[in-house]
């Protein structure tokens, strides 16, 4: 059951007015332009026990993604595809109101939006995770730990997921017919990625559209729209968050604003994921 939240991270009305009065002057409380992302760092290989990992810091937000895999059986309706599971945890470390326990609806929603962005875009090639059709496939888990909750966790999570997947190797396998021998200790192929995906979130606050909202902006926003893109401009996922509304004209505007931000993110991603053997989109 989904409940109206108790405004857990409520910003006093006076703060809202303060933020708005700054916006009226064409700037944001941290000095950014409306269309700017915050400072961004992406560090691959941060978690050494993961088969691939990436720490992403986006302003005050910190997110750590790790990839694990295991041999598994395919689902009956996708006998020639691997399994792919995204799990976002809003850890109690990350924010003062977060409690330990199973993922709440916010964490579940984040997991599912990241999952769809990576799956339906075909960014990850699930067919190449099949070992023996109908019998044996890889299950890939990507676990995303939110460590510091400073706004726009979704875009940071998508960056971390993509960077961690590009960092990851499958174990070595030797296949003889239906016999599969897994040599855990040795690295095999990379996790098969076709291309990166980025997500851009735009908050609507009164008449303003703010890219990459930080926590206070996010808290007082009327609604947020998160759009996932490929580098060629195709939209591969959308999620509207929050109970505010938008007109169809505003949807147009937000999509254009979001698309304009993608080049910066692809650039930052490519600094870490470009591979010697031929680049990210091979």
């Amino acid at each position, binding site marked *: *059951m*989904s*409940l*109206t939240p*108790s*405004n857990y991270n409520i910003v006093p009305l006076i703060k809202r007015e303060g933020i708005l009065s700054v916006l009226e002057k064409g700037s944001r409380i941290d000095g950014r332009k409306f269309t700017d992302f915050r400072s961004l760092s992406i560090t691959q290989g941060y978690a050494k026990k993961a088969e691939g990992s990436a720490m992403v810091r986006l302003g005050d937000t910190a997110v750590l993604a790790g990839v694990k895999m295991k041999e598994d059986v395919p689902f*009956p*309706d996708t*006998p*020639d595809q691997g399994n792919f599971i995204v799990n976002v945890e809003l850890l109690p470390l990350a924010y003062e109101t977060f409690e330990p326990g199973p993922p709440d*609806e*916010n964490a*579940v*929603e984040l*997991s*599912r939006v990241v999952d*769809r962005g990576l799956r*339906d*875009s075909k960014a990850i090639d699930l067919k190449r995770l099949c070992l023996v*059709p*109908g019998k044996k496939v890889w299950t890939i888990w990507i676990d995303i730990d939110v460590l510091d909750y400073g706004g726009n966790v979704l875009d940071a999570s998508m960056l971390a997921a993509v960077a961690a997947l590009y960092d990851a190797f499958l174990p070595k396998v030797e296949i003889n017919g239906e016999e599969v021998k897994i040599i855990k200790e040795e690295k095999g192929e990379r996790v098969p990625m076709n291309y990166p995906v980025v997500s851009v979130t735009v908050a609507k606050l009164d008449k303003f559209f703010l890219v990459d909202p930080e926590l206070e902006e996010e808290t007082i926003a009327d609604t947020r*729209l998160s759009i996932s893109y*490929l580098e060629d*401009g*195709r*939209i*591969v*996922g*959308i*999620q*509207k*968050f*929050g*109970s*505010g*509304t*938008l*007109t*169809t004209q505003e*949807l*147009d505007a937000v*999509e*254009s604003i979001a*698309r304009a931000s993608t080049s910066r993110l692809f650039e930052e991603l490519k600094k870490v994921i470009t591979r010697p053997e031929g680049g990210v989109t091979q």
Partner: protein
Amino acid sequence: MLTLQVQKPKLILEDGRRTDGRRPDEMRPIKMEVGILKNANGSAIVEMGKTKVLTAVYGPREMHPRHLALPDRAVMRVRYHMTPFSTDDRKNPSLSRREIEISKVIREALEAAVLAETFPRTTIDVFSEVLQADAGTRLVALMSASLAVADAGIPMRDLIAGVAVGKADGTLVLDLNEEEDMWGEADMPIAMMPSLSQVTLLQLNGNFTPEEFRAAIQLASKGIEELYKLQKETLTSKYSAYKEVN
């Protein structure tokens, strides 16, 4: 060699029609009815093709536990749930992650419409039960929920109508069926308060070019107008029927 493998069928046939005979911009047959449950304060059932969802509304009523009540508005509690026999394979009755997400997006969409500030310190409970799932369940649930809230006499800014637009074999199609949902290239559920021209729910999986995205919204808007008209008729006929009786 593997017989398990299922082939993607052709979704748009030679004559430009869809696998179920519809034109790309044609919706499935729709039925709506309100006030069908005795105990609930409001209720509605909506059928769209073979998708069928029943919603009951209880409230506004006292919130338990009290500390979850809000001083300035009603809390909305929304559950989207699929009955175990609504799907091809039996669905486990406990809430799946998919149901948790959909409950949330339906709640947020409803909150845009319900005048919750009219009833501070109370709760308005909206329980949707999917009786048959055959594509479009979240939108059918949301429409039945908005009718049930209206049937409960709770004031709203507007009703909510919604429909999915997808892409099948490269063609934009309105109100996906299950084959298009499974094999199509995109699925974008969208819901609006039509008389206010406000979008209350928007999701997309699959892929659209920016142009397709804009065209899809236009296509959806047409469908939404039709659905909205039917919703209003459903409510009017019920209450005019009442008047005759009184």
